[in-house]
């Protein structure tokens, strides 16, 4: 029982560490991390696109479209930020 708790505790610590690591890296090098997260998210999106196209798309194109969609989403968020906080730009 005690061991499991300990493990739990260790893994929690690791999680916190991981989160803080990602956070600090984010502050330091935004671009590479953004690209990394984009690709991660695309792991979910691309198969959906592939499935939705019901075989008319290559797997590669589905990936590309997924990324294109995410980039567009990023641009939309960026533009909203410009609208609500124009002083920053």
């Amino acid at each position, binding site marked *: 029982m005690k061991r499991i708790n300990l493990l739990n505790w260790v893994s929690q610590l690791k999680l916190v560490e991981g989160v803080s690591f990602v956070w600090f890296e984010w502050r330091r090098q935004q671009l590479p991390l953004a690209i990394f997260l984009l690709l991660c998210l695309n792991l979910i999106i691309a198969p959906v696109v592939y499935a*939705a196209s019901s075989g008319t798309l290559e797997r590669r194109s589905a990936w590309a479209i997924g990324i294109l969609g995410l980039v567009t989403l990023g641009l939309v968020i960026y533009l909203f930020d410009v*609208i*609500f906080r*124009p002083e920053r730009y």
Partner: protein
Amino acid sequence: MFQGFIQIALTLLIVIAIAPILGKYIARVFLGERTLIEPVMIPLERIIYSLGGIRAKDDMTGWQYAQALLYTNFVMGVFVYLLLMLQGILPLNPTNLIAPSWHLGLHTTLSFLTNTDQQHYSGETTISYLSQIAGLSFLMFTSAATGLAVGIAFIRGLTGRPLGNFYVDLTRSITRILLPISIIGALLLLILGVPQTFAAPAVVTTLEGVTQYIARGPVAAFEMIKQLGENGGGFFGINAAHPFENPNSATNLIETLAMISIPAALIHTYGIFANNTKQAWLLFWMVFTIFVILVSVTAIGEYQGNPLVSSILGAEQPNLEGKEVRFGWAETAFWAVATTATMCGAVNGMHDSLMPTGGFSTLLNLFLQIVWGGQGTGTAYLFIYLILTVFLTGLMVGRTPEFLGRKIEKREIVLASVVLLVHPIVVLIPSAVTLAFPNTLSGISNPGFHGISQVVYEYASAGANNGSGFEGLGDNTLWWNLSTCLSLLGGRYIPIIAILLLADSMAHKQPVPETAGTLRTDSLLFTGVTAGVILILGVLTFFPVIALGPIAEAFKIANGQ
């Protein structure tokens, strides 16, 4: 032919005549001046206020006003949703109707709550009398009053007054404007043959010996507020095309006038608040001109009829498909444009069967939202466009743009932009998703370009809080009910909050005195420029879908396919 156009012209003349009178009356009501019905209403209002614990003198800030509005609407929504879901066990249900599906109930509630009245059901077979009266009729009054209150608060803010108190404005809208006119109108409809009864459907045996159930109910009262409040949700599935809702040309005229009168009058109300009747008339004529052009386009299209059909008949015949013969092409065309222009959404014919020109006009109305526009909100949108025009062109005279002496700055542009942004988002995105999965989601009955019109129309109608349907769409599905709910809510409350905050920030600005360097907004030139900006911003946003919908369809028909 002439008879049809004369009918349209006469109706328009009546609108021109009554709009300023009603506008003046509305202004008196909300400026707190004496009106004729004061003696009756003051005690009634006093009871309402004391029951609700409202002090009529408390002015609200924009955010307080918006909060009060949202809370009130939320409570009313929950109440009506429960009423609908429990109608099976509640009284006044002679046909023993059961509760609708949860998503249909949700859609119906939100649709009536947002003054949209989009219906994915047929009233006579889905909604009990109690739900019709206590639920939907109730919301028809309150949602119209909510819109009116927002419009008035916005006008107050623009003209530098405190926004007022939401509860008082809501109450007054009902007691002084909606209720009195509804009572008179309903009585007129009753006299002209619209039924008003709690009796169960009549059962008759036809000449062929078949038993037929003829649905009826408390229609007259329902019908009047449906038109007057820009609600548009029919008692029966086919709405005002049903002979019990709209039996003849006389009722048709009353109902048409009822839907145009308040939005048209509010422009004049603004003129009185701003003490600038000249500008009010200019704006009135601007909107009127756009309206007349759209009516003409539609009416001519319907009059010329479908060339494919005409070639079979060997003569040019008006397009009468999907129309009630008692109204003919002219009254139906006029109604179709009026109902989409005013965000009423009641129909007296099938919009699906209009010629592409009609599809174009009705869609354009839903996109612009200011050709009269919804109850209260339409007038507010009109002034949002005016503010954007002031900003664009105001820079060109070399000063920080100002409207009614109040400077248009970042905050105003952000809020006006929110209003401008919401519509494309709630219309285009769900339309695109639906059309991307035509087989699973759309339920389109008429594929091709017409299918695009059907889908876009449904979301535009929801987003603009219009409620009319292109019909022909299998829309009582989980997807349609829920996705249109998002358009309903987004299209209603986000702009309302933005409008109220905008009014608040305008109200608190120090007005700048007018000089020769001030751009006058009550000139013909400026009004013309405003019309240009409205058309450019509104049309450019939706040009691709209009091109792929009605315009492509028109060319297809013209090419004889």
